[in-house]
């Protein structure tokens, strides 16, 4: 086994918390931990001390791929010219109800 310094050994984890049944998991923050179990327990101690969660996901930060902010313009461009994706785009008479 190669000997690493402890700093290199404890990867960074991103923490996602579901605050209530029925809601999505939401990013809460990050922490360092040696493995998933430790990440989970530390996440509980750090991010849910006041019942802020009923479920936790942890994922190593290196597994997250993010879109590039400086390419956001062109990356999200396809959605810019499609007003017909919104209900208000369609002209319908006022007397039409329940639609």
């Amino acid at each position, binding site marked *: 086994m190669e000997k690493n310094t402890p*700093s290199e050994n404890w990867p960074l984890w991103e923490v996602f918390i579901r605050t209530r049944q029925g809601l999505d998991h939401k990013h809460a923050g990050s922490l360092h931990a*040696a493995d998933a179990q430790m990440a989970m327990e530390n996440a509980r101690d750090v991010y849910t*001390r006041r019942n802020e969660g009923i479920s936790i996901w942890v994922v190593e930060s290196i597994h997250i791929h993010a879109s590039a902010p400086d390419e956001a313009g062109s990356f999200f461009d396809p959605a810019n010219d499609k007003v017909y994706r919104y209900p208000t785009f369609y002209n319908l008479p006022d007397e039409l109800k329940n639609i």
Partner: protein
Amino acid sequence: MLPAEKIFEDKIAREVRIEPKDWMPEDYRKLLIRQMSQHAHSEIVGMLPEGNWITRAPSLRRKATLIAKVQDEAGHGLYLYSATETLGITREETIDQLHSGKAKYSSIFNYPTLTWADIGAIGWLVDGAAIMNQVPLCRASFGPYARAMVRICKEESFHQRQGFEILLTLSRGSEAQKHMCQDAINRWWWPSVMMFGPPDDASPNNQKSMQWKIKRFSNDELRQKFIDVCADQVRVLDMKLPDDKMKWNEETQHYEFGEINWTEFWSVVNGNGPCNKERLDARKKAHADGTWVREAAAAYADKKNHSSHIQ
């Protein structure tokens, strides 16, 4: 101005948060790393003066409260270290900077906690000053910092209330307890007032920080707000703030206050406070003593990884 810089300045002007991967001026990054890591270190070192009284808290209720408070401070340190790391500095680098003395932490924690009443005074005044500082930081222009501050501020208010409750109990107790209460206020008042940092005209980073909307109020503005609030609150305790010159000014609608001893402030910042060495030594010792735990956990994780690959 570079196009990237223009975009950055424009976001600042429009109150759009800056996120870690966005382009930012090097000075903005540096200023944030300095302020945020210093803030993180303060949360961590801040556990020491209070930790001193956990084993001697006067009741189980007080003890449970104090443990919960100190644990919160550890959490605050972690939120802030994590947020700082998004700026491209590693956790180890920030911690090394604390241990080498390159990075500072709030000077207030270089004062000793001599009696139980100090725990009350810290909650009321030190956490009170911290809250005054931190609430506007929830709107800081750097996203991860602002989000960490929102979380922290939610947790802080119990810290101040439990402190005030300790002092209130003492203030209604025996003569000796009243005396203890006043003595703690006397010792913690001025260092708390100094927590807002040097006066605006002697604080070069203040202006930059405000311009980039990291800070929203200047040191002196926040200090005045704090003094105004405390001058009223101390009456509930039937105690006095140790400042003969303090008086209400009808015209400005603020309290006037006496001269702040900036010589003392700088002397403590520069390492000559009553507990500077003790605090730093305690931090370094805790880190060194924890080495085997970090190594063992890493070795265990490594072993598990290996065996799962073989299967």
